[in-house]
């Protein structure tokens, strides 16, 4: 009798609660871990690994997407970031281009890493992230098992993620040559209208400083037809940002030529009145900062 009672007590107080606990495992735990792993892989430039981990998260939560809006929003953000960075650092998606040495009647082609493929994927994930934003904002940030986001993401607010998504669009459109779209993005985001504001915006979006010169070049090109002076300032900022310790520039030589040609297209230093000198951002005649002291010659009666 006693043994039976003990068995029943064990069943009621130990086995059943344990079974109940197992059946109600925190559903947000696995996405939490996937976000943690995906973010760490991204930090070490393991782009294929990061994409695989985060795509898995999306696949596993697709059927109940609204419940996982916060975690999916951050997954889409990390995927956007992974593809933008892969396009710039180490593309792993590929494209096939026809081999010019092969006649048109023979098949064949050359497989090569593809920046464009990554930029398209980045635009797609950015779109998904924007779709999830509202749900993410309405979502609780904690579940019964604890926070839904790993520490690496918990401090990166939804607004800052959105700032990054702006920059991702700018990088994609800029690299693809869609300058009208860069202009549209800039118009939608007033915090990208001056060099100082842009620097601050890039910092909140956790964009690495090594990409600042690219962003400045995109903004220079986008503003060139609509605001020549502000475009000039972004060109100067790109030059200054890309200067290496030995005085050379990390910018592509063709881009340097493009900037140099623009700098010498009618701008003068307001301090000494002399024409701007190509590839300099400090006036060699009076040491004034071109960022602050430049005007177009024709608008100054020059």
């Amino acid at each position, binding site marked *: 009798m006693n043994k039976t009672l003990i068995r029943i007590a064990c069943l009621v107080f130990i086995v059943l609660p344990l079974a109940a606990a197992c059946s109600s495992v925190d559903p947000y735990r696995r996405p939490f871990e996937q976000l943690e792993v995906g973010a760490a892989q991204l930090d070490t430039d393991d782009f294929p690994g990061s994409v695989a981990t985060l*795509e*898995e998260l*999306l*696949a*596993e939560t*697709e*059927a109940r997407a609204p419940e996982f809006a916060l975690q999916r929003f951050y997954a889409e953000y990390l995927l956007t970031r992974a*593809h933008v960075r892969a396009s710039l650092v180490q593309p792993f*998606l*590929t*494209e*096939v*281009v*026809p*081999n*010019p040495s*092969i*006649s*048109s*009647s023979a*098949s064949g*082609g050359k497989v090569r890493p*593809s920046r*464009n*493929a*990554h930029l*398209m*994927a980045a*635009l*797609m994930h950015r*779109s*998904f992230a*924007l*779709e999830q934003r509202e749900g993410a904002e309405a979502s609780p940030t904690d579940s019964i098992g604890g926070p839904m986001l790993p520490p690496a993401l918990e401090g990166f607010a939804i607004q800052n993620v959105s700032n990054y998504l702006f920059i991702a*669009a700018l990088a994609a459109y800029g690299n*693809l*040559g*869609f300058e*009208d*779209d860069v202009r549209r993005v800039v118009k939608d985001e007033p915090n990208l209208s001056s060099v100082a504001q842009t620097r601050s915006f890039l910092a909140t979006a956790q964009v690495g400083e090594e990409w600042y010169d690219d962003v400045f070049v995109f903004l220079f090109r986008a503003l060139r037809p609509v605001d020549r002076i502000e475009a000039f300032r972004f060109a100067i900022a790109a030059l200054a940002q890309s200067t290496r310790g030995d005085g050379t520039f990390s910018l592509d030589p*063709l881009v340097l030529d493009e900037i140099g040609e623009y700098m010498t297209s009618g701008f003068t230093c307001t301090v000494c009145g002399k024409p701007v000198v190509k590839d300099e951002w400090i006036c060699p005649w009076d040491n004034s900062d071109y960022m602050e002291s430049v005007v177009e010659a024709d608008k100054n009666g020059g």
Partner: protein
Amino acid sequence: MFVRRVVLLAALASCPLAACAGHPLSRVDAFPQLKHFSNRKEVWAEARFYTDHARTFGVDLVADYGIVPVALKIGTVGEIGGDPPRVYMPEMQLRMFLPDGTALAYVPADQVPVPQSIGDRILKEKLELSLLHPWSSDDARWGYVFFALPDREHFVSTGPTTVVHETEPLWREMSLADGLVSFVYTSNQGDEPVNLGLQTDSH
């Protein structure tokens, strides 16, 4: 292929979560419309995807052969200083991209894997390019270029413009009209890249 399309279409129509089709499926609904024309200094280019291209070729090339036909027109604009810009089909590096980053390789018109009767139509409609002519002249003409879906068995056509990419772990339904066409032309400065989205159209 036909049976798979029917099963997939039925699943997409009846199951809002799509997971019951066997795989989680995500629709790329909000992809930004990419500009369908490109003005790179002296060259203007436009690309179109005709939803009723089957009327031109007598067959749905996407659904039946995994071939995406894109109508392309390239011409010069403005004053051309120095040597005019040039294109040479084998060196144009033509390729196409879908929103998920899938790259489609260019297939010369005479290599599109179709029966001869269809092949004849393809040859008749293909883009002929040698010299670039002024955009507004009669000599600058529209013509088709063709791109092959890679791993064709993993793509299923689900509508006039849509395909499902059956990739692991997540299937994605995308519009071909959201694609990007890329190529280069040669100018005095060297190879100039051109990227353009697609305008959806019908005859």
